């Protein structure tokens, strides 16, 4: 479904991604780990279509389409979803109205009729239950004044509403308490099926106890320097990143 080849990305003069290669197939769960500042969020943002970045080289295919050619909203329409590491607060835009606009925009992109108020509400109720999100959060402005954990939960709620084919969760586990982590993981696992895929960006093995990855990758200095199975995450948890850094000390 997603195929990244030799992706090189810079912000201004600073090169951040130095040739990323990654294949994600339907039904898979990939975890991306790596030290702070290694480029994980950059990769996620470039995939979602943030415009501050300059793509210097490489290509990204999503279901056979050139992803980098598409506007952010078209990528969402194609089935890409990014749960942000730091979801932005948008005062004055109600969470519910926003969701309705999002759901119907994506339906429109796919040639479907907009959901009417009744069906939208029905779907919302169902998905609210799945991630145990409180009604009161939804009548408020989008993320405004939400606690860190509430913001993360809201991201997963949006994911549940939009039913993407590829969800990239950028440190969605950070800032969640243990119960919330369990609930969010349960939500992700419930939505997971053989036709969709998840990329988990995380620093913590504990998330991977709940959402078990098929592959674990280590991103360091803008490259995937190691890939393995879920055991790699355990090894990282135990040993830290020093050995990775040493193995790759030749990287600039």
């Amino acid at each position: 479904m997603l195929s990244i080849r030799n992706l090189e990305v810079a912000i201004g003069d600073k090169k951040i991604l130095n040739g990323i290669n990654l294949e994600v197939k339907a039904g898979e769960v990939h975890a991306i780990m790596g030290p702070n500042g290694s480029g994980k969020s950059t990769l996620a943002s470039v995939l979602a279509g943030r415009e501050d970045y300059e793509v210097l080289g490489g290509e990204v295919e999503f279901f056979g389409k050139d992803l980098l050619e598409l506007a952010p909203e078209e990528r969402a329409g194609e089935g890409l979803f990014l749960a942000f590491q730091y979801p932005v607060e948008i005062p004055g835009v109600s969470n519910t109205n926003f969701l309705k606009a999002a759901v119907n925009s994506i339906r429109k992109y796919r040639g479907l009729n907009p959901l009417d108020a009744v069906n939208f509400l029905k779907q919302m109720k169902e998905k609210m239950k799945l991630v145990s999100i409180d009604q009161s959060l939804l009548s408020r402005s989008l993320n405004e004044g939400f606690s860190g954990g509430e913001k993360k939960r809201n991201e997963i709620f949006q994911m549940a509403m939009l039913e993407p084919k590829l969800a990239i969760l950028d440190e969605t586990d950070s800032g969640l308490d243990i119960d919330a982590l369990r609930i969010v993981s349960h939500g992700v696992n419930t939505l997971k099926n053989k036709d969709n895929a998840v990329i988990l960006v995380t620093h913590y093995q504990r998330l991977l106890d709940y959402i078990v990855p098929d592959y674990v990758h280590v991103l360091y200095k803008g490259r995937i320097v190691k890939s393995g199975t879920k055991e790699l995450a355990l090894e990282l948890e135990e040993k830290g990143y020093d050995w990775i850094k040493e193995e790759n000390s030749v990287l600039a």
Partner: protein
Amino acid sequence: MDFKENIITHFETFKKEVNSPAHIDEIRESALNKFSKLDVPTPKHEEWKYTNLKNLVNKTYQLGNKNIATSSYTHKYTQFINQYDEKDVNILVFVNGEYISALSHIVSPSNELIISNLSQAYREHSELIEQHFSKYATYEKEAFVALNTAFAQEGVFIHVPNKTEVKLPVILHFIADASATDVICHPRNLIIVGKNSSLTVIEHFNSTNTPFSTLTNTVTEVYVAENAYCEHYKIQTEESNASQISTIQAVVQRDGRFNNTTVSLSGKLIRNNLNIKLNGENCDVYMNGLCAITGSTHVDNHTAVDHAMPNSQSNELYKSLLDEKSSGIFNGKIFVRQDAQKTNAYQSNRNILLSPTAKANTKPQLEIWADDVKCSHGCTIGALDEEPLFYLRSRGISEGEARAMLVFAFADDILERIKYEPVRLYAEKIIAQRLGMEE
């Protein structure tokens, strides 16, 4: 003919025609005298730095009040009057400054609301007039206030007795209609809200779209007595032939509340002066402003809040959405006098430039003479934030729709503060329509 000369030549005839009581004539004479001595402001005046009146004062205006009331075509004004989705309301209509009784109606009982054309109040409420009229909007230094005062004849006079809640709002429609010549008019309002009483007033400005120019030079004096509450809105939706210089002078007594929301949506040149004096302890004042303009509309909001006594608070939020070649000016003064300890005064001005040719200028001016006060101010000028835009787009919402949502939210932050719903809905609808939003 020179602007001033032209006006002054009208004065004697005007004075004879209106035949006011002696003490009003005295005020007129004195105001005209001041006007003739004061310069018409140019950008060299500090307070008029960004607002150039040269294309307004180069015209030879006819005085507005020319017996429109007797003509039969008043129906052309009903479109302006029926804009709010509300029938149960007091309405007064003024065309080119002249009161049109045929289009006006008062529904509030007379023990709740004493209301009339100002000229009528000159005779029927001479005591209140002597006590309040021209006592707050001083014309010593303000040429346009002096001019308005010299010609003050029509406009609303409102007196809410003590301990009275006026349940239905008063909507004042000022319509500028220059059908055959350029027209200047001088609506003058006096609003007195008695002790422990409350009132909602809306001033709405419209114009007919004609090849001629209009200049509406209005002054509203508001007296909010002890523990009274006045909710006041100014809505400006004139055509691009219409300009206005519009002064509100409010005085708030102890425990009084005065809220003004000014919404400027179109017109040629608008200068708003909002001056509020907090003349007692424990007053509470809100100044909200939304300026959402396009084309080459110019809006200049000058506000001044004068904290004269302790323990009062003022809250100011002005926002501008400036598109195409429009320009928005904000100048906000906060005075805290030495006696006004424990004052809370907040001011914020935020401007969004929606096009590279739009311009904004903002200037906070704080003068604080008391030491135990909380004051803050802040201003921003910039384009729409990229972060929220990206967030919305990443959820599938098109760039156009995402922009519309964010711009609407920015504007609605002000409109939400309008407590009288028909006015809020009216303004929201205009903004939404402009943004091409469905609902």
